């Protein structure tokens, strides 16, 4: 287990971001500006989670 969980989290955030970017563009051209902002916040949060997870993984991996 242990380090595997970092991998899982990172790949989930990657998947979330792919979908979020797609939806952001979609609602941008649909001129649904509220949605654009929502999705982009989701995407930023998931990137942050990804980076934090990565830092913790790095600590364990190279210790």
């Amino acid at each position: 287990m242990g380090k595997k969980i970092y991998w899982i989290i990172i790949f989930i955030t990657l998947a979330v971001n792919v979908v979020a970017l797609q939806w952001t563009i979609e609602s941008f051209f649909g001129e649904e500006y509220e949605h654009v902002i929502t999705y982009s916040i989701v995407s930023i949060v998931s990137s942050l989670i990804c980076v934090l997870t990565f830092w913790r993984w790095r600590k364990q991996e190279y210790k």
Partner: protein
Amino acid sequence: MSKEQKGKRNQKETREDMVGLIHNLERDEDLKFNRRSFLKSAVGATVTLGVATLPFSVLALQDKEKDDNRKEIAKLADIPKDSAINFQYPTESEPAILVHTKDGELKAYNNKCTHLQCPVFYEKEESVLLCPCHRGFFSVDNGHPLAGPPQRELPLIDIQVENGVVYAVGRQIRHG
């Protein structure tokens, strides 16, 4: 084995002693493409995708401010039932059509066909919106394509009637 042959054993693509001892070893690639760098690229991709959404929300915030505009289209009395008039909304360069249906409902759409942007007309006989370019049909009730090449709906314009005057008050590009 001669000295010369021994030297060749440690090179790729040689059949000198029948066993390609090093043929699946690539030290450079092992350094570049391994488990750790795979995870790092995944992190890079995630962050890149996240950052890529930012320009859209910046533009969205800017556009939001100039969003609501109310525009007079015509007097209700000037549009008999089962007829249509053209107007421009939200800007002068975006043509639109206002239809007063047989049942007395008012429906308005931007009338650039969603196929290749020909103007769309109201077809009285069948009560549909017709694009003559490639025979695309749209429903008058909701603007969605019924037949022909168009795949997306016409942008819907929100209508308000006040004191016998018809106003356009907003627009939804994707709806229903």
